[in-house]
């Protein structure tokens, strides 16, 4: 049997259900790993050691008596520290948050607990999941490089084998980017598919809770267990038809990213998938401007009271962002929301002949240093439009860091996107994570 730290969430859940592993063994293994590696990787904002072990003991007895709570019974999970979880602080990497405040479970955490997951703790985040202070989470493939962000700890914790799965968020590129940078799988569902209840917002109409896990099958397992709106049934595919977006997504990527993703697409083609180039509508060129105006206005509105009451405890960077974003004229915000509808309508026909679109997840691997959490430009269009998007690792850049293949579907086709990711992962394989 594979060692616990090397199991996917799906394998671990299966082994717990069949009695080969008990939840106490699983939680203890991951806690030992965290104790040994956390001082370097810095993935965790809070670890609920006692609570997780107590829960694991109860779940071990339940498993022995055949009373499984759900498909994730006994599987440890980490939560980005912008979701509330009962018994744990929510700090969002900000000194403005009260470490003694208590909260009820957020919708995602409640759904995970109902499915049997054990909440191991809270994962590090960029300040308020925005563009403020990064937490200093290091990339397990090379600690001189960022682990990505803003779901920094969520990506690093899975990539460093500290937990089999985590929950992140994505407003621009904050969930799939750390998944890709750490060589694991990630999924940003359709807007509204996962609950935002109890999530500190960046931007209400752009925020998406997301998943990070060891494999695409894990994404299927976890999404199926916690989605409040799972969308349409997966469309059965005899042979996957994949539309490749060469405009913008390949044009703005670095040479070795293009080479690695092209090689992956060639392997998918050789395995029987149909891979065609698809052109973007002209309006797509405005996507970044539309996203920027919507995100900045909503972020400023949410943080305005905090700026007034606790601005001196905000980081300088976050404070400046809130002050500047507050100046976007209302007419421009509304015009951006109208342009979003136009862009969504212009993009939907791309899925008529191809249920999924493919492109690089990021233009380059994780950058060196910890000040920047990387480039979100290939991810933010799908956050803007609310379309489901998955990433799976597809190879290594010349510097040895992971690169991802991004797969995107029409809204509501979450299960189809995940099934496409599973099919692609079977061809491309998974990366062996660093020791």
């Amino acid at each position: 049997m594979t060692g616990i730290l090397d199991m996917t969430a799906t394998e671990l859940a299966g082994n717990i259900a069949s009695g080969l592993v008990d939840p106490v063994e699983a939680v203890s293994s991951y806690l030992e790993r965290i104790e040994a590696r956390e001082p370097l990787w810095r993935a965790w904002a809070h670890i609920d050691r006692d609570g997780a072990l107590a829960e694991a003991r109860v779940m071990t007895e339940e498993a022995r008596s055949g009373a499984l709570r759900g498909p994730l019974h006994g599987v440890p999970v980490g939560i980005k520290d912008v979701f509330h979880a009962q018994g744990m602080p929510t700090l969002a990497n900000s000194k403005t948050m009260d470490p003694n405040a208590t909260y009820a479970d957020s919708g995602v955490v409640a759904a995970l607990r109902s499915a049997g997951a054990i909440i191991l703790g809270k994962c590090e985040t960029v300040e308020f999941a925005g563009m403020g202070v990064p937490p200093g989470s290091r990339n397990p493939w090379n600690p001189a490089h960022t682990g990505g962000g803003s779901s920094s700890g969520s990506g690093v914790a899975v990539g460093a084998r500290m937990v089999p799965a985590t929950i992140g968020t994505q407003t621009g590129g904050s969930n799939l980017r750390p998944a890709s940078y750490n060589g694991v799988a990630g999924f940003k569902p359709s807007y509204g598919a996962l609950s935002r209840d109890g999530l500190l917002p960046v931007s209400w109409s752009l925020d998406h809770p997301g998943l990070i896990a060891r494999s695409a099958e894990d994404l299927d397992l976890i999404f199926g267990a916690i989605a409040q709106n799972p969308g349409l049934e997966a469309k059965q595919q005899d042979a996957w038809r994949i539309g490749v977006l060469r405009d913008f997504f390949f044009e703005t990527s670095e040479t070795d990213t293009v080479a690695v993703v092209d090689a992956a697409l060639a392997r998918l083609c050789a395995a029987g998938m149909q891979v065609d180039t698809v052109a973007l509508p002209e309006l797509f060129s405005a996507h970044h401007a539309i996203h920027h105006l919507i995100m900045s206005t909503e972020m400023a509105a949410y943080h305005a009271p905090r700026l007034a009451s606790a601005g001196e405890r905000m980081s300088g960077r976050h404070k400046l962002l809130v002050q500047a974003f507050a100046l976007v004229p209302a007419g421009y915000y509304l015009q951006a929301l109208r342009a979003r509808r136009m862009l969504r309508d212009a993009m939907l026909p791309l899925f008529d002949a191809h249920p999924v679109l493919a492109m690089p997840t990021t233009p380059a691997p994780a950058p060196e240093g910890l000040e920047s959490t990387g480039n979100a430009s290939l991810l933010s269009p799908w956050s803007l439009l609310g379309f489901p998007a998955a990433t799976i690792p597809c190879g290594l850049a010349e510097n040895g860091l992971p690169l991802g293949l991004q797969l995107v579907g029409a809204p509501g086709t979450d299960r189809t996107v995940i099934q496409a990711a599973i099919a692609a992962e079977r061809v491309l394989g998974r990366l062996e994570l660093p020791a």
Partner: protein
Amino acid sequence: MRLKPPVSVDHARNYLMSCAELAWDGPQALELGPILDGIANAMAIVSALDIPDDIEPLFGEDIATAGQEPR
């Protein structure tokens, strides 16, 4: 701030900087400059779009329910 005729990046930036000086104190407004540049650029792009009269804003709740017909 007008939407039409389209505004230039410079026009939008000057508008934002004057707002910043009113909203926040002068020295602090200067620190906002690089962030205001990004907003001004986005305003110029969105201002230049031709949006038909019948297009309504796409709010979050609309995104959650729109476009989920089988395809």
